[in-house]
């Protein structure tokens, strides 16, 4: 994030510690995540100790501290989706992509997230890929989905590539 963009976000809110969360939201909106330098700048601009900025940013689920992948797979682990096998979907995604929940593939193509209910329980298990909802997902469907997005590569090469 450029110093200019940060300046814009901070404009009119300098030295107002109570604006911390709003400012962090705006940073995330712009960059997709909250980089360390941005936190430093926010700390300076608002007059909030850096420890406090980091504490707040790390506390709320809404803030991400690492860049997300190009395609964010969000697996619903809410009760309804859970009983219909969301766990298997998570295993499928982590296994196929070779990354853990919350991580990004080295090629930056995928990241895996979880939520606790998206409000469409009747259609579960639900997986969203960026803003697109996929309903009644099975491990097989998910594998195909990941293959398709990953550029029609068969699983092996996809895997090799991510190593």
């Amino acid at each position, binding site marked *: 994030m450029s110093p200019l963009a940060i300046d814009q976000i901070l404009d009119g809110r300098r030295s107002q510690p109570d604006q911390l969360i709003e400012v962090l939201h705006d940073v995330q909106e712009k960059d997709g995540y909250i980089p360390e330098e941005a936190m430093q700048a926010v700390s300076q601009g608002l007059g909030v*100790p850096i*420890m406090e900025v980091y*504490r707040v940013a*790390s506390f709320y689920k809404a803030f991400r501290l690492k860049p997300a992948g190009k395609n964010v797979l969000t697996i619903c682990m809410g009760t309804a989706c859970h009983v219909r096998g969301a766990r298997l979907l998570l295993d499928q995604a982590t296994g196929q992509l070779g990354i853990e929940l919350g991580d990004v593939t080295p090629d930056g193509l995928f990241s895996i997230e979880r939520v606790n209910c998206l409000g469409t329980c009747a259609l579960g298990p639900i997986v969203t890929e960026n803003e697109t909802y996929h309903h009644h997902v099975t491990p097989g469907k998910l594998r195909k989905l990941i293959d398709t997005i990953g550029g029609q590569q068969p699983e092996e090469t996809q895997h090799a590539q991510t190593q």
Partner: protein
Amino acid sequence: MQQYVNVNIDGAIIRAIRGTSVLDTAIEYGICIPHLCHVPGLTDIGACRLCIVEHVVNGRSKVTTSCTLNVEEGMVILTSTDKIRKLRHNLAELLVAQAPNSRAIQDIAVRCGVTSVRYPFRNADCVLCGRCVRTCTEIWKARAIGFVGRGKDRHVDYPFGIQPEFCKQCNNCIQICPMTITPCNGPMKPGEEYLCGQCESQLIVADETPGSCVWCELGEGFACGRYA
């Protein structure tokens, strides 16, 4: 000018300074309420829950932490009822299961009547009491460490995990940490741990003086009434 209120702690009518906590008042008066996260002079955050008491209002009692409860006129507090002792026993048991490798934690557990543990040992090196964070923030005004993350991922860390140049290296955070008061030097096999008392914690005298105040080493750090 200091104002006073009268409170009743375990039947004793105490003239307490308005604005102080029930815990501070009790300690000042010589009534020991076990506590871990409380440090005189630092803000109380009610993290360890060991200092719970029964606060009786209109014949009903509420269990609450005494370090975060301020004295009020006519207050009735019971610090050592069966109910409290049972709850506190369980809290201490969980605490010592989380971090058995510290003599301070063993001492406080023994004080709460724990001599064996029913829960799996976690052998963690932090109990999230926040003593370090508060001393860094409030006494040293450095804010070099703080709580990071939430839920089971909550831990104490520097900003971004790197010691910042504004850390005053006073080491107060380490001195005040209950984990550093004679830490255990012989970790046991995972799954086979038990409270051994080899650190000469008060466990060795627990049979003779069950649940009584045991001159725990902690008391000194806590500025317990007995050391005043």
